[in-house]
């Protein structure tokens, strides 16, 4: 483990060193790619600027709200559709059709409907994240072991009890995968909405840095969005491990 870590750290250090050396050596104009040190200074400047923290809060707010809405709608509808075979048959074609529609296609629409407001951002985020959740929940519900379900029935468990004791535990790993995918997609659409529409947030700050030619700040803000993405991935993995600590995929190394 520690060996892997040291390789990884060396890789990171090498990456930063390359970022420092390439512009200094004149391989690319420093106006396009400032050396790592300058980006670090710009990052420091951002961190001491109140406006940056406000933008970060706006982005996180859109992300959390959008993800919550998409997740609750996806789970509720997924369980409902998945548990009723007729509904599953009826909705299959529509879900297949709506899912690949790129959520950015909605950008012009939300601009005329809501302008540069939180609603615009939320529509994009919820639309994109909802499908990730719904499809995973549907897969999960389909995975229920018929023998387990029959057994539960034989023991006289009602519909509600079977949902709690059979369906939900089966679907949970899929729900967690969906949540992880949805969390990443939600961040992308959140920042995209801010960047393209101008809804307040990190994306909008990036757009301002670009139009004012503040290249080191542009890179610093991109680094921040990347770190935010890493934090979200790591957080989602942790939540997944915690929620599935009873599941084979997590405790498998010890037990099986």
């Amino acid at each position: 483990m520690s060996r892997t870590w040291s390789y990884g750290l060396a890789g990171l250090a090498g990456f930063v060193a390359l970022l420092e050396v390439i512009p200094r050596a004149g391989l690319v104009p420093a106006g396009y790619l400032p050396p790592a040190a300058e980006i670090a200074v710009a990052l420091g400047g951002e961190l001491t600027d109140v406006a940056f923290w406000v933008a970060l809060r706006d982005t996180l707010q859109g992300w959390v709200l959008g993800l919550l809405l998409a997740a609750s709608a996806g789970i509720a509808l997924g369980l409902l559709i998945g548990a009723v075979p007729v509904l599953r048959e009826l909705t299959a074609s529509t879900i297949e059709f709506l899912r690949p529609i790129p959520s950015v296609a909605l950008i012009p629409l939300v601009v005329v409907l809501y302008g540069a407001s939180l609603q615009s951002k939320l529509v994009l985020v919820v639309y994109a994240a909802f499908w990730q959740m719904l499809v995973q929940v549907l897969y999960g519900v389909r995975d229920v072991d018929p023998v387990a379900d029959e057994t539960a029935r034989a023991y006289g468990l009602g519909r509600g009890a079977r949902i709690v004791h059979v369906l939900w535990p089966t679907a949970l790993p899929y729900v967690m995968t969906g949540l992880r995918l949805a969390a990443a997609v939600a961040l992308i659409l959140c920042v995209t909405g801010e960047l393209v529409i101008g809804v307040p947030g990190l994306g909008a700050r990036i757009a301002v840095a670009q139009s004012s030619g503040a290249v080191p700040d542009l890179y610093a803000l991109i680094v921040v969005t990347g770190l935010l993405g890493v934090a979200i991935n790591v957080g989602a993995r942790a939540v997944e491990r915690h929620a599935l600590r009873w599941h084979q995929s997590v405790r498998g190394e010890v037990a099986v």
Partner: protein
Amino acid sequence: MRLVYWLTLPVVLVAAWWVATAGSEDFYVPPLRTILETAPDVWTPTRLRTDVLPSLLRLLAGFGLALLLGVAVGVLIGGSPRVRATVEPVLEFVRAVPPPVLVPVIMLFAGIGDGMKILVIVSGCVWPILLNTVEGVRAVDGVLAETARSYGLTGPARLWRLVLPAAGPQIVAGARQALSLAIILMVISEMFAASSGLGYTIVEFQRSFAIPEMWTGIILLGLLGVVLSGLFRLAENVLLGWYHGLRRAQKG
């Protein structure tokens, strides 16, 4: 019977849309009738050639390049545990950057031409493909790898007969994620600084308040996403037919 199931809900939804908007006075939500009547006037063969075709070509070029690059680099990284341990944190970070924020940076380097748009698509699409390839190559069955070695399967033959087929399902899963990203990035790159393309056209309609025209563009973009994902599924069935067959056989 299947067909009835497939068609019922879509027909109901479109009908509901038609009826709900039939008498719509809302400037931003025109009747579906108006939208459909506008479509043939907007999406003439000329416009399809000057706006939709270039978008599609850029999309295919970007997606194709990302596929080549992702698989090639993924095989290299996946093949060596040390290389993998070294680059993994950097890859995790780069992948976590929301791809659209790279548009301003790529504009610095590549201006606002076709090259920039293709680069934007590549820069976003390459990660799911690359990381999935790494995972796929890493999980190549050890016994198979040993057997291949003892039969003297090396170099390109090893790549074609062992590594790529073994990693195939993972690579395809990554490519599917990349395809939906490609469409998103195609539209975004055209919404920034462009003078042609589907994304550009739709934003122009929006800015000039040509609302029914804007709706036709949104619907066209939706259809494009559906058609592309359908084509992808066809390609997947051809490429991975052996794998799905194997899975079915194993499940009995």
